[in-house]
């Protein structure tokens, strides 16, 4: 048998493929069903939060920040309760990260506030003098992409049956409705902010990226 494989490139290739593929099948598939159940009370992201999450995703904040609190006392003391699998049920993609150049952010919403983030994202050194985090001033002038976030929510609702519009859940509705809802949420956040440009933009009915990002960070609890 072995001899034959060595001489037949095609079956050789099939053999290699089977060997490498089956590991994946056994390793990954069975845990799929278990791991995807959301924890009780977990609501899907609102459109504004999703827009913020997309900024987090597109800017690759995961290069410096994890979102995974491991079961050690030193971590739970520092960041809060251990992360549970079901808490990530609506995270597509997952944003655990692999490197903590900055601190874990999985529960940052518990101990940082809107105005703290505002100052920090504008200029991290003004809040933490030794910080090496880059400043993101352009997020105060660029607008968040609410439409894409809506498209994403609609997609996960349709394709993965994410419970939008369920009783007591997150409401999605039509594009117009979600734009309006996102703006309402943004107004609440902007009320806690000082930056004049941001306040003006929200008053005009536009939503700067920073507002969406803060909505997302505040939700991380």
């Amino acid at each position, binding site marked *: 048998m*072995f001899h034959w494989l060595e001489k037949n490139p*095609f079956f050789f290739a099939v053999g290699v493929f089977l060997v490498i593929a089956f590991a994946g099948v056994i390793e990954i*598939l*069975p*845990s799929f069903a278990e791991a995807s159940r959301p924890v009780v009370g977990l609501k899907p992201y609102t459109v504004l939060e999703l827009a913020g999450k997309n900024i987090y995703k597109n800017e690759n904040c995961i290069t410096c920040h994890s979102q995974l609190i491991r079961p050690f006392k030193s971590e739970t003391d520092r960041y809060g309760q251990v992360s549970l699998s079901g808490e990530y049920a609506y995270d597509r993609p997952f944003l655990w990260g692999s490197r903590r150049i900055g601190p874990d952010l999985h529960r940052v919403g518990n101990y940082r506030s809107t105005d703290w983030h505002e100052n920090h994202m504008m200029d991290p050194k003004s809040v933490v003098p030794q910080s090496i985090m880059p400043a993101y001033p352009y997020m105060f002038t660029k607008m968040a992409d609410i439409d894409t976030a809506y498209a994403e929510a609609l997609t996960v609702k349709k394709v993965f049956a994410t419970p939008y519009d369920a009783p007591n859940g997150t409401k999605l509705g039509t594009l117009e409705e979600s734009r309006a809802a996102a703006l309402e949420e943004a107004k609440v956040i902007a009320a806690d902010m000082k930056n004049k440009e941001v306040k003006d933009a929200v008053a005009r009915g536009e939503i700067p990226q920073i507002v969406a990002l803060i909505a997302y960070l505040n939700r991380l609890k």
Partner: protein
Amino acid sequence: MINLVEVQGYARIIMTIVLVIILYGYILHLYRSEKKGERDYEKYGKIALDDDITSTPVEKNPNLHQKKEGEK
């Protein structure tokens, strides 16, 4: 309902054993066929050393001059 994770555990352990057997079978195969004089594996090392386009192949590909067999 059977617990999927348990199935996974068993599948994994069984497959590991199977693979170990195959791998050891392969070692045996390699050394046996060389002892019996059926094949000489080390000669394939020459494929890299003597690799001009005009060199004689270590083993000629028989399919080349015949009709193609579906093994591409």
